[in-house]
């Protein structure tokens, strides 16, 4: 065999090195542009109110070690603001069930769509997945009217149900894709072994679907935690029930006059999602890759 013909020459090596450099530069630029606003926000959150109004955040970079320009006042104000602690707890009360409920329902549904034979299966699946394209804004008013008449308005149950409804189509779709790709033999072996559908689901499918479940859990958690619109509509702004996002938007004031508070508030509210993300991160990566490579 003549292998020299296929050996990469110097031209190839050069091109490879060049393309690597180009690639890296491009990635660096994208990362920089992408994180710049967050960085600006982060720096601003440590600047006094008047400085923020007077000059851009980048001006601090000229004299970073001049400590008079740094302050924790914004954080202090936000933390001690009326009822923020309560809204933090409210956010948790809203977010955790609003993550767990849709995932539980979606996992059952995905298994049924993937492995059970029932009348109208394909039609139902198409219907549910088709709802992904429904903008949730369209549903707000009808649902709100329904809630008002049934007394669910302003209750946690109401917002759990709302988030469940809005989250289900995507959850069913994602989990279905994963669960349907589990080896058929495995499900059948369990059937022959004597497992019912419920036992197959809890004993085997659920255990093997951890990556998909975890990655969707992260998505849903972040979405619900950061949600302002749905929370405002269904919970309102009463301190006892409103979420952190709603309270923060109030702090800023109706004309945005206190927006320096938003900077620190944003970083405070980011803490929980970051913890969740890093806790589930290893599943998250696997979940995105799920099914792309045969084991």
């Amino acid at each position, binding site marked *: 065999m003549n292998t020299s013909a296929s050996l990469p020459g110097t031209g190839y090596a050069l091109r490879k090195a060049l393309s690597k450099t180009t690639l890296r530069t491009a990635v660096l630029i994208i990362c920089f542009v992408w994180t710049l606003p967050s960085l600006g926000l982060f720096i601003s959150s440590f600047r006094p109110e008047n400085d923020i109004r007077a000059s851009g955040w980048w001006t601090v970079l000229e004299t970073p070690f001049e400590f008079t320009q740094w302050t924790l006042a914004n954080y202090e104000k936000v933390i001690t603001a009326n009822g923020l602690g309560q809204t933090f707890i409210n956010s948790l009360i809203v977010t955790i069930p609003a993550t767990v409920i849709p995932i539980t329902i979606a996992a059952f549904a995905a298994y049924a769509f993937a492995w059970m034979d029932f009348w109208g299966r394909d039609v139902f699946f198409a219907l549910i997945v088709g709802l992904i394209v429904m903008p949730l804004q369209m549903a707000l008013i009808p649902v709100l009217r329904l809630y008002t008449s049934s007394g669910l308005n302003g209750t946690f149950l109401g917002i759990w149900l709302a988030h469940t409804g809005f989250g289900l189509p995507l959850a069913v779709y994602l989990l279905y894709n994963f669960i349907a790709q589990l080896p058929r033999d495995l499900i059948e*072996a*369990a059937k022959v072994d004597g497992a019912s559908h419920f036992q197959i689901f809890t*004993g085997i499918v659920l255990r093997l679907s951890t990556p998909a479940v975890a990655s969707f859990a992260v998505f849903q958690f972040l979405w619900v935690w950061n949600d302002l619109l749905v929370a405002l509509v269904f919970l309102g702004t009463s301190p006892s029930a409103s979420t952190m996002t709603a309270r923060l938007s109030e702090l800023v004031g109706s004309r945005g006059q206190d927006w320096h508070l938003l900077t620190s508030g944003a970083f405070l509210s980011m803490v929980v999602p970051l913890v969740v993300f890093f806790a589930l991160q290893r599943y998250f990566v696997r979940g995105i890759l799920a099914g792309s490579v045969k084991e």
Partner: protein
Amino acid sequence: MARVFYENVTKAWGDVIGVNNLTLEIPDKEFLVLVGPSGCGKSTALRCLAGLEEITKGNIWIGDRIVNDVPPKDRDIAMVFQSYALYPHMTVYDNMAFGLKLRKTPKDEIERRVQEAAKILGITQLLDRKPKQMSGGQRQRVALGRAIVRDPAVFLFDEPLSNLDAKLRVQTRAEISKLHQRLGTTFIYVTHDQVEALTMADRIAVLRDGVLQQVNTPQHLYDHPGNVFVAGFIGSPAMNFFSGTITGTLEEMYVDSGGVRIRLPQNEVEQLGAENIGREVIFGVRPEDIHHPQYIPAGVKEQLIEATVDVTELMGNEIFVYLLTEKEESFIARVDPRAHLRPGDKVKMAFNSEKVHIFDKATEKMLATPKGTESAA
């Protein structure tokens, strides 16, 4: 312990027919192998029996009950899959115990059965491992173990050796045979590999396009294939076929393809009778019934046929010779390794005239079959 009976079973998906009117009785304790090319419906037949597919028509009996509407878990069967289908998140022990746990077997009973099965299969030291930490052969043993612990009435095997390498396959083949002797349970085994079928089966059922072709013992199937398909499928290298006619008289009858002309022995003349003289036939001769003229085994009534060597393949203990007759009909002979044959050589090959299989050309059904080793004994 149970017999299995397929009674006019048909499985169809719309217009696609998987199994076509299959009637097959498998007595208790038999090792039956379902064999056929891929897509012949053998796996479908097995899956119908397992309850993983619903049948379209007919009845399936296990023991003395019809199981058409019985779910897999209540059919008292265990199945070994080609892909092993081990539960990846469970240890070997839990894999084997899973079915027993679902049946609410007492803990000490589970422990006893798993340990016993592990001992039979020699996997006691693997009980704490997860499937991904084991080799293919070990996984297949665990899959066997998972079936054994259940102590089912019928064992089903769906190409269990296909994913193993050649050496391991031979070894596991022997182990499954031993297992059958030891357990004395009905085994139904699906494979596309006729060697597996011949070596393991009590009886072989050959399927093609969902239709049962022939069921019999391996030896009978080999000696007396009922049609051209079975004749070509069982045996390796495959039987040589020639297209020709029956000529001559009741006193001196021949099959003649132009390049190959063989005088038929008395017993085949009797099977054919006068009415078949002139009929167009396909006749077959197995490669091992064609010899090199210098190395003809004793007792063979040979018919010398002129041929040209095309290719030779030395297998060590024998040579496969690819030849062409004067009419360019190709055939293969398995000859003595001492035979010196080179491509291009002209040689008079010795056909064993008592080993000619004759089939009708139109129906491909058997018309006359040679005396077999069974009938001779």
